[in-house]
Protein backbone atom coordinates (compact mmCIF):
# COMPACT_ATOMS: atom_id res chain seq x y z
CA UNK A 1 0.00 0.00 0.00
CA UNK A 2 1.32 3.44 -0.91
CA UNK A 3 -0.42 6.22 1.01
CA UNK A 4 -4.14 5.52 0.87
CA UNK A 5 -4.07 3.84 -2.53
CA UNK A 6 -3.25 0.20 -3.20
CA UNK A 7 -0.49 0.09 -5.81
CA UNK A 8 2.45 -2.25 -6.31
CA UNK A 9 5.28 -1.18 -3.96
CA UNK A 10 8.04 0.94 -5.51
CA UNK A 11 11.67 1.12 -4.40
CA UNK A 12 11.21 4.43 -2.57
CA UNK A 13 8.35 2.96 -0.54
CA UNK A 14 10.49 -0.10 0.28
CA UNK A 15 13.32 2.20 1.45
CA UNK A 16 10.79 4.13 3.53
CA UNK A 17 9.54 0.89 5.11
CA UNK A 18 13.09 0.13 6.22
CA UNK A 19 14.01 3.64 7.38
CA UNK A 20 10.68 5.20 8.30
CA UNK A 21 12.01 6.59 11.57
CA UNK A 22 14.63 8.70 9.82
CA UNK A 23 14.04 12.22 8.49
CA UNK A 24 15.35 11.39 5.00
CA UNK A 25 13.11 8.29 4.84
CA UNK A 26 10.07 10.48 5.54
CA UNK A 27 11.36 13.02 3.00
CA UNK A 28 11.67 10.34 0.30
CA UNK A 29 8.17 9.01 1.04
CA UNK A 30 6.65 12.50 1.02
CA UNK A 31 8.21 13.53 -2.28
CA UNK A 32 8.20 10.13 -4.07
CA UNK A 33 6.07 11.32 -7.02
CA UNK A 34 8.32 14.30 -7.59
CA UNK A 35 11.44 12.12 -7.31
CA UNK A 36 10.04 9.66 -9.87
CA UNK A 37 9.10 12.50 -12.23
CA UNK A 38 12.65 13.89 -11.93
CA UNK A 39 14.12 10.43 -12.62
CA UNK A 40 11.94 10.17 -15.75
CA UNK A 41 12.98 13.67 -16.88
CA UNK A 42 16.67 12.78 -16.40
CA UNK A 43 16.26 9.52 -18.37
CA UNK A 44 14.56 11.34 -21.28
CA UNK A 45 17.20 14.09 -21.24
CA UNK A 46 20.01 11.51 -21.27
CA UNK A 47 18.44 9.47 -24.10
CA UNK A 48 18.02 12.60 -26.23
CA UNK A 49 21.49 13.85 -25.32
CA UNK A 50 23.19 10.60 -26.36
CA UNK A 51 20.92 10.28 -29.42
CA UNK A 52 21.81 13.71 -30.77
CA UNK A 53 25.42 13.99 -29.53
CA UNK A 54 27.04 12.96 -32.79
CA UNK A 55 24.54 14.07 -35.39
CA UNK A 56 24.91 12.63 -38.87
CA UNK A 57 23.31 13.70 -42.14
CA UNK A 58 22.10 10.14 -42.72
CA UNK A 59 20.89 9.12 -39.25
CA UNK A 60 21.30 5.64 -37.79
CA UNK A 61 20.60 3.90 -34.48
CA UNK A 62 19.26 6.08 -31.68
CA UNK A 63 19.40 9.30 -33.73
CA UNK A 64 17.24 7.62 -36.38
CA UNK A 65 14.67 6.53 -33.76
CA UNK A 66 14.52 10.00 -32.20
CA UNK A 67 14.14 11.68 -35.58
CA UNK A 68 11.37 9.22 -36.47
CA UNK A 69 9.52 10.09 -33.23
CA UNK A 70 9.96 13.84 -33.91
CA UNK A 71 8.63 13.43 -37.46
CA UNK A 72 5.61 11.43 -36.24
CA UNK A 73 4.77 14.13 -33.70
CA UNK A 74 5.28 16.86 -36.30
CA UNK A 75 2.84 15.08 -38.62
CA UNK A 76 0.28 14.49 -35.87
CA UNK A 77 0.19 18.09 -34.59
CA UNK A 78 0.54 19.49 -38.09
CA UNK A 79 -2.81 17.87 -38.92
CA UNK A 80 -4.52 19.50 -35.93
CA UNK A 81 -2.87 22.91 -36.03
CA UNK A 82 -2.20 23.25 -39.75
CA UNK A 83 0.81 25.24 -40.90
CA UNK A 84 1.28 26.69 -37.39
CA UNK A 85 1.75 23.19 -35.93
CA UNK A 86 5.53 23.42 -36.02
CA UNK A 87 5.51 26.48 -33.78
CA UNK A 88 3.88 24.52 -30.95
CA UNK A 89 5.73 21.24 -31.60
CA UNK A 90 8.43 21.76 -28.90
CA UNK A 91 5.77 22.26 -26.20
CA UNK A 92 3.35 19.55 -27.33
CA UNK A 93 6.09 17.07 -28.25
CA UNK A 94 7.80 17.45 -24.88
CA UNK A 95 4.45 17.02 -23.16
CA UNK A 96 3.69 13.83 -25.12
CA UNK A 97 7.10 12.22 -24.60
CA UNK A 98 7.22 13.13 -20.90
CA UNK A 99 3.68 11.90 -20.16
CA UNK A 100 4.15 8.71 -22.21
CA UNK A 101 7.41 7.85 -20.40
CA UNK A 102 5.83 8.58 -17.03
CA UNK A 103 2.80 6.41 -17.86
CA UNK A 104 4.99 3.48 -18.88
CA UNK A 105 7.49 3.98 -16.06
CA UNK A 106 5.16 2.27 -13.57
CA UNK A 107 5.30 -0.96 -15.60
CA UNK A 108 8.98 -1.43 -14.67
CA UNK A 109 9.12 -3.48 -11.45
CA UNK A 110 9.71 -1.37 -8.30
CA UNK A 111 9.03 1.87 -10.19
CA UNK A 112 5.97 4.11 -10.07
CA UNK A 113 4.04 6.16 -12.63
CA UNK A 114 4.10 9.73 -11.29
CA UNK A 115 1.03 10.41 -13.48
CA UNK A 116 -1.08 8.30 -11.10
CA UNK A 117 -0.85 11.26 -8.70
CA UNK A 118 -3.21 14.20 -9.15
CA UNK A 119 -0.59 16.83 -8.21
CA UNK A 120 1.62 15.81 -11.14
CA UNK A 121 -1.20 15.70 -13.73
CA UNK A 122 -2.63 18.97 -12.36
CA UNK A 123 0.73 20.64 -12.90
CA UNK A 124 0.70 19.52 -16.56
CA UNK A 125 -2.87 20.72 -16.99
CA UNK A 126 -2.03 24.09 -15.39
CA UNK A 127 0.92 24.49 -17.79
CA UNK A 128 -1.42 23.87 -20.74
CA UNK A 129 -4.07 26.21 -19.25
CA UNK A 130 -1.55 29.03 -18.68
CA UNK A 131 -0.08 28.59 -22.17
CA UNK A 132 -3.51 28.62 -23.84
CA UNK A 133 -4.58 31.75 -21.91
CA UNK A 134 -1.29 33.41 -22.87
CA UNK A 135 -1.90 32.53 -26.54
CA UNK A 136 -5.49 33.79 -26.32
CA UNK A 137 -4.35 37.16 -24.96
CA UNK A 138 -1.40 37.37 -27.39
CA UNK A 139 -3.56 36.54 -30.43
CA UNK A 140 -6.67 38.55 -29.53
CA UNK A 141 -5.51 41.12 -26.96
CA UNK A 142 -7.11 41.45 -23.50
CA UNK A 143 -10.31 43.12 -24.75
CA UNK A 144 -10.46 40.89 -27.82
CA UNK A 145 -10.25 37.85 -25.56
CA UNK A 146 -13.01 39.23 -23.30
CA UNK A 147 -15.10 39.91 -26.43
CA UNK A 148 -14.44 36.31 -27.55
CA UNK A 149 -15.45 35.04 -24.07
CA UNK A 150 -18.67 37.06 -24.38
CA UNK A 151 -19.51 35.09 -27.55
CA UNK A 152 -18.35 37.76 -30.06
CA UNK A 153 -21.75 39.60 -30.09
CA UNK A 154 -22.53 41.41 -33.33
CA UNK A 155 -26.09 42.67 -32.79
CA UNK A 156 -28.48 43.64 -29.98
CA UNK A 157 -29.59 40.04 -29.34
CA UNK A 158 -25.93 39.00 -29.17
CA UNK A 159 -25.25 41.65 -26.49
CA UNK A 160 -28.44 40.66 -24.60
CA UNK A 161 -27.23 37.06 -24.13
CA UNK A 162 -23.74 38.13 -22.99
CA UNK A 163 -24.66 37.61 -19.27
CA UNK A 164 -25.44 33.97 -20.16
CA UNK A 165 -22.56 33.29 -22.56
CA UNK A 166 -19.79 34.89 -20.45
CA UNK A 167 -20.20 32.60 -17.38
CA UNK A 168 -20.59 29.63 -19.76
CA UNK A 169 -17.29 30.41 -21.49
CA UNK A 170 -15.50 31.05 -18.18
CA UNK A 171 -16.78 27.70 -16.87
CA UNK A 172 -15.60 26.02 -20.09
CA UNK A 173 -12.13 27.55 -19.75
CA UNK A 174 -11.92 26.52 -16.07
CA UNK A 175 -13.14 22.98 -16.67
CA UNK A 176 -10.53 22.24 -19.36
CA UNK A 177 -7.50 21.83 -17.03
CA UNK A 178 -9.63 19.93 -14.48
CA UNK A 179 -10.78 17.53 -17.21
CA UNK A 180 -7.23 17.01 -18.47
CA UNK A 181 -5.80 16.38 -14.99
CA UNK A 182 -8.57 14.13 -13.67
CA UNK A 183 -8.77 11.91 -16.75
CA UNK A 184 -5.03 11.21 -16.91
CA UNK A 185 -4.69 10.68 -13.16
CA UNK A 186 -7.84 8.53 -12.88
CA UNK A 187 -6.88 6.27 -15.76
CA UNK A 188 -3.30 5.77 -14.63
CA UNK A 189 -4.22 5.22 -10.99
CA UNK A 190 -6.93 2.70 -11.94
CA UNK A 191 -4.55 0.87 -14.23
CA UNK A 192 -1.85 0.53 -11.56
CA UNK A 193 -4.30 -0.52 -8.86
CA UNK A 194 -5.58 -3.21 -11.27
CA UNK A 195 -2.02 -4.48 -11.85
CA UNK A 196 -1.37 -4.58 -8.09
CA UNK A 197 -4.66 -6.39 -7.37
CA UNK A 198 -4.04 -9.04 -10.05
CA UNK A 199 -0.43 -9.53 -8.89
CA UNK A 200 -1.66 -9.96 -5.31
CA UNK A 201 -4.33 -12.42 -6.46
CA UNK A 202 -1.65 -14.51 -8.21
CA UNK A 203 0.33 -14.66 -4.96
CA UNK A 204 -2.66 -15.46 -2.73
CA UNK A 205 -4.00 -18.28 -4.94
CA UNK A 206 -0.81 -20.36 -4.70
CA UNK A 207 -0.12 -19.37 -1.11
CA UNK A 208 -3.12 -21.54 -0.14
CA UNK A 209 -1.12 -24.59 -1.25
CA UNK A 210 2.08 -23.26 0.42
CA UNK A 211 3.68 -22.97 -3.02
CA UNK A 212 6.66 -20.56 -3.01
CA UNK A 213 5.97 -19.07 -6.49
CA UNK A 214 3.10 -16.90 -7.83
CA UNK A 215 0.98 -16.96 -10.99
CA UNK A 216 1.75 -13.78 -12.95
CA UNK A 217 -1.92 -12.88 -13.38
CA UNK A 218 -1.02 -9.23 -13.99
CA UNK A 219 0.68 -9.94 -17.35
CA UNK A 220 -2.46 -9.37 -19.54
CA UNK A 221 -3.18 -6.17 -17.60
CA UNK A 222 0.40 -4.99 -18.26
CA UNK A 223 -0.25 -5.30 -22.01
CA UNK A 224 -3.49 -3.38 -21.54
CA UNK A 225 -1.55 -0.77 -19.57
CA UNK A 226 0.90 -0.37 -22.47
CA UNK A 227 -2.04 0.51 -24.71
CA UNK A 228 -3.85 2.78 -22.23
CA UNK A 229 -0.60 4.53 -21.23
CA UNK A 230 0.01 5.41 -24.88
CA UNK A 231 -3.63 6.38 -25.45
CA UNK A 232 -3.77 8.65 -22.40
CA UNK A 233 -0.56 10.48 -23.40
CA UNK A 234 -1.99 10.87 -26.92
CA UNK A 235 -5.38 12.10 -25.66
CA UNK A 236 -3.75 14.63 -23.32
CA UNK A 237 -1.58 16.13 -26.04
CA UNK A 238 -4.27 16.01 -28.74
CA UNK A 239 -6.69 17.86 -26.44
CA UNK A 240 -3.97 20.37 -25.58
CA UNK A 241 -3.41 20.92 -29.32
CA UNK A 242 -7.19 21.32 -29.81
CA UNK A 243 -7.27 24.00 -27.07
CA UNK A 244 -4.31 25.76 -28.72
CA UNK A 245 -6.13 25.47 -32.08
CA UNK A 246 -9.24 27.10 -30.56
CA UNK A 247 -7.08 30.00 -29.32
CA UNK A 248 -6.05 30.85 -32.90
CA UNK A 249 -8.88 33.24 -33.95
CA UNK A 250 -8.76 32.93 -37.75
CA UNK A 251 -8.84 29.12 -37.68
CA UNK A 252 -12.36 28.64 -36.36
Amino acid sequence: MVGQVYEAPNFIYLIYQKFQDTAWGAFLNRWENLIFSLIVACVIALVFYFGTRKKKLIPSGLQNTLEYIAELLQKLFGETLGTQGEKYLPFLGTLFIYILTMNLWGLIPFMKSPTSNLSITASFALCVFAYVQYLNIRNMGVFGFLYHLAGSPKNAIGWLIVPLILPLEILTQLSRPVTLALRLCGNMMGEHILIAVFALMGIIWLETFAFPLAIPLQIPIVFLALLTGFMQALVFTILSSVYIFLSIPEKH
Partner: protein
Amino acid sequence: MPKNEQKMGVFISLPFILAIPPIIGWFIGRWLDGRLHTAPYLKYLFLILGILSGARECYRLIKAYGDKT
Protein backbone atom coordinates in the same frame (compact mmCIF):
# COMPACT_ATOMS: atom_id res chain seq x y z
CA MET B 1 -9.93 16.28 -42.22
CA PRO B 2 -8.78 15.07 -38.80
CA LYS B 3 -7.39 11.55 -38.67
CA ASN B 4 -9.03 8.67 -36.82
CA GLU B 5 -6.54 8.78 -33.91
CA GLN B 6 -7.32 12.45 -33.32
CA LYS B 7 -11.04 11.80 -33.48
CA MET B 8 -10.69 8.91 -31.05
CA GLY B 9 -8.62 11.07 -28.70
CA VAL B 10 -11.23 13.81 -28.70
CA PHE B 11 -14.25 11.50 -28.41
CA ILE B 12 -12.70 9.46 -25.58
CA SER B 13 -12.66 12.63 -23.48
CA LEU B 14 -16.29 13.64 -24.17
CA PRO B 15 -17.71 11.96 -21.01
CA PHE B 16 -15.26 13.91 -18.85
CA ILE B 17 -16.00 17.13 -20.73
CA LEU B 18 -19.72 16.59 -20.07
CA ALA B 19 -19.29 15.63 -16.40
CA ILE B 20 -16.69 18.06 -15.05
CA PRO B 21 -18.27 21.52 -15.79
CA PRO B 22 -21.46 20.86 -13.72
CA ILE B 23 -19.27 19.84 -10.76
CA ILE B 24 -17.11 22.97 -11.09
CA GLY B 25 -20.25 25.09 -11.54
CA TRP B 26 -21.75 23.57 -8.40
CA PHE B 27 -18.60 24.36 -6.38
CA ILE B 28 -18.40 27.95 -7.71
CA GLY B 29 -22.12 28.45 -6.95
CA ARG B 30 -21.71 27.04 -3.43
CA TRP B 31 -18.73 29.35 -2.81
CA LEU B 32 -20.65 32.37 -4.12
CA ASP B 33 -23.69 31.40 -2.01
CA GLY B 34 -21.46 31.41 1.06
CA ARG B 35 -20.06 34.86 0.20
CA LEU B 36 -23.32 36.52 -0.89
CA HIS B 37 -25.75 34.65 1.44
CA THR B 38 -27.93 33.61 -1.47
CA ALA B 39 -28.12 29.85 -0.74
CA PRO B 40 -29.17 27.74 -2.56
CA TYR B 41 -29.98 29.79 -5.69
CA LEU B 42 -26.49 30.42 -7.12
CA LYS B 43 -25.53 26.78 -6.50
CA TYR B 44 -28.34 25.56 -8.74
CA LEU B 45 -27.86 28.39 -11.24
CA PHE B 46 -24.17 27.55 -11.70
CA LEU B 47 -24.98 23.82 -11.82
CA ILE B 48 -27.29 24.50 -14.79
CA LEU B 49 -24.67 26.80 -16.35
CA GLY B 50 -22.11 23.98 -15.91
CA ILE B 51 -24.40 21.49 -17.68
CA LEU B 52 -24.90 23.98 -20.55
CA SER B 53 -21.17 24.70 -20.68
CA GLY B 54 -20.31 20.97 -20.93
CA ALA B 55 -22.91 20.47 -23.65
CA ARG B 56 -21.60 23.51 -25.57
CA GLU B 57 -17.99 22.28 -25.41
CA CYS B 58 -19.10 18.81 -26.56
CA TYR B 59 -21.04 20.34 -29.47
CA ARG B 60 -17.99 22.42 -30.39
CA LEU B 61 -15.69 19.38 -30.43
CA ILE B 62 -18.18 17.15 -32.26
CA LYS B 63 -18.65 19.90 -34.86
CA ALA B 64 -14.89 20.16 -35.34
CA TYR B 65 -14.06 16.44 -35.30
CA GLY B 66 -17.26 14.58 -36.23
CA ASP B 67 -17.97 13.23 -39.69
CA LYS B 68 -19.70 15.70 -41.96
CA THR B 69 -21.96 12.99 -43.49
